[in-house]
């Protein structure tokens, strides 16, 4: 098992695509095993694709691209702008609200951050916001998408850890909204001190507000319909994913009239590429996942962890700290695939709810893509709005404090997470 880890790390450091680093180190287990025929490795790759919950991945990726093309993103942006741009740090507030609303449409933090850096970044800088502050708020607010349904990360966590995806989706709603409130407070305090205001914005009257709300109704209704459809237990998350695609097509063609066949084709080609990228990592992780279970890695780690501690909260806090450190270096999808099978059994063993843990874990590992030294969302935003990493790091501090405060709150008050799923299921 040690040599698998070494091969994996060496390939990663050399800059190999993550999918191949995972695939080759996992395959080594089968090549070098005396008891396991090599062809079982291929069998593991194939059997990953036979999981019905995983079909939700292509559906929600495709639906996200379709909604971008069908004018849904644009209407959400206009609504957020009318609703909050008059506040202190108005454009930062718009970015946070938009991330929350987009979280209900697409499930990817990096895509959300890139989109906002393009449409909000230049305006923020024109209005006198510092580059570091603008980059920090855009990148870190995309963390909200990690828990608002449909979240790709939660689908993967549910699949790998054998946890109900419907419950995870519901559990993510309150933490996502709280994250929005916490980040808005942090953005407000800094902006107030520096007198960041959007010059053209004024407080909307009721009519303007409800008009923008009405314009965006189909986009705003989507996450609600999604939760209602899964909640009833009549449809599985994968089936709801296929509804999401059809919903985006109907809204785009019939209701908004913004969609054309060209745009559908473009959305589909983007989706095929994204699906290929994510799914190759997932397919290849089938081998290493098997090796982890076969070598009883969870049991050894559990033994080491449980030897020193007895309180479930302390154990979960230690795991979260480990996840945070791993997240600084490794991409979140990879962490979810590799570490969920190790940690979920431990967490269950000490009597901690795996749904509660999933929300905490997703928040922490997704945060890794917004922090140096390795952070896809951070690099994307900083390069798009031309911000130095040092400035970004300095200006992230108040937002990081808000995020850590929220994670601690969620850790110690499980009801905030579990209230909704327990109410419904």
């Amino acid at each position, binding site marked *: 098992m040690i040599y698998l880890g070494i091969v994996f790390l060496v*390939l990663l450091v050399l800059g190999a695509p993550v999918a191949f680093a995972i695939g080759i180190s996992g395959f080594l287990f089968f090549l070098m095993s005396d008891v396991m025929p090599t062809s079982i490795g*291929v069998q593991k790759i*194939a059997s990953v*694709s036979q999981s019905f919950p995983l079909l939700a991945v*292509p559906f929600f990726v*495709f639906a996200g691209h379709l909604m971008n093309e069908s004018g849904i993103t644009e209407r959400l942006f206009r609504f957020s702008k009318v609703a909050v741009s008059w506040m202190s740090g108005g454009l930062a507030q718009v970015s946070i609200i938009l991330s929350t609303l987009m979280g209900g449409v697409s499930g990817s933090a990096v895509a959300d951050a890139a989109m906002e850096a393009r449409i909000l970044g230049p305006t923020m800088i024109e209005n006198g916001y510092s580059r570091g502050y603008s980059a920090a708020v855009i990148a870190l607010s995309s963390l909200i998408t990690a828990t608002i349904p449909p979240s790709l990360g939660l689908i993967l966590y549910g699949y790998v850890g054998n946890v109900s995806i419907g419950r995870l989706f519901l559990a993510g709603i309150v933490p996502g909204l709280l994250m929005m409130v916490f980040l808005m407070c942090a953005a407000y305090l800094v902006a107030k001190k520096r007198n960041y205001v959007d010059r053209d914005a004024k407080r909307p009257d009721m009519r303007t507000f409800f008009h923008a709300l009405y314009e965006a109704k189909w986009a705003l209704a989507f996450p609600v319909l999604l939760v209602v459809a899964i909640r009833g237990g009549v449809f599985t998350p994968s089936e709801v994913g*296929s509804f999401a695609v059809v919903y985006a097509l109907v809204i785009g063609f019939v209701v908004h009239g913004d969609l054309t066949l060209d745009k559908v*084709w473009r959305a589909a080609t983007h989706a095929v590429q994204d699906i*290929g990228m994510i799914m190759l990592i997932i397919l290849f992780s089938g081998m290493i996942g098997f090796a982890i279970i076969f070598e009883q890695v969870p049991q050894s780690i559990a033994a080491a962890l449980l030897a020193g501690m007895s309180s479930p909260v302390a154990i979960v806090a230690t795991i979260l700290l480990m996840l945070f450190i791993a997240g600084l270096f490794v991409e979140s999808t990879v962490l979810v695939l590799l570490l969920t099978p190790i940690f979920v059994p431990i967490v269950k063993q000490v009597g901690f709810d795996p749904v509660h843990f999933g929300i905490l874990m997703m928040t922490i590992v997704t945060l890794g893509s917004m922090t140096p030294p390795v952070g896809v969302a951070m690099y994307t935003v900083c390069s798009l709005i031309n911000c130095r990493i040092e400035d970004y790091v300095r200006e992230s501090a108040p937002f990081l404090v808000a995020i850590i405060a929220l994670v601690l709150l969620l850790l110690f008050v499980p009801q905030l997470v579990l209230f909704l799923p327990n109410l419904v299921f």
Partner: protein
Amino acid sequence: MNSVLKRFELVCGVILLGLIVFLVFIAAIMRTFGHPLIWSVDLAQLLFIWLCFVGASRALRARAHLGMDIAIRHLGHRSRLIIELLLAVLFIAFLAILTVEGVNLTLLNRERLFGDSGLSYAYVTIAVPFGSLLLVTSIVSNALEAWKQRNAPAADLVFSRSDDSSAQALL
């Protein structure tokens, strides 16, 4: 040859994606109205692995696969190219073994049936060698392209783009 393969991947990928959406959607609707279609979801599940590999190859050609560049970001273009070419050789060897083992497994699986629909599981396992070969063609064509431009300092490598174009790629 390369452009034909590129087109083939694109068209196949979009058709597979559309079919899978349609099959799962129809199955859910029909079940609601009391006429469950068992084969529909099974067929979608079978096509899924093909979509994954076709998409993976397309992403590889677009140099879109995620990697970590923290350690090698500051190396020169030439050193990075050499590292990526060596990785390419390793990956091709890995994919070649997967192809051989995948064909063996498929031959073993001819008898095994898939779900309740009577489809052979071999249609699933054969996707692994097929996908591995497709990935080999994209690695080879990317490597040739990178080698041809080995003297241009800002040219794309085998698996990653030059810094200027990578920010654009995420959009």
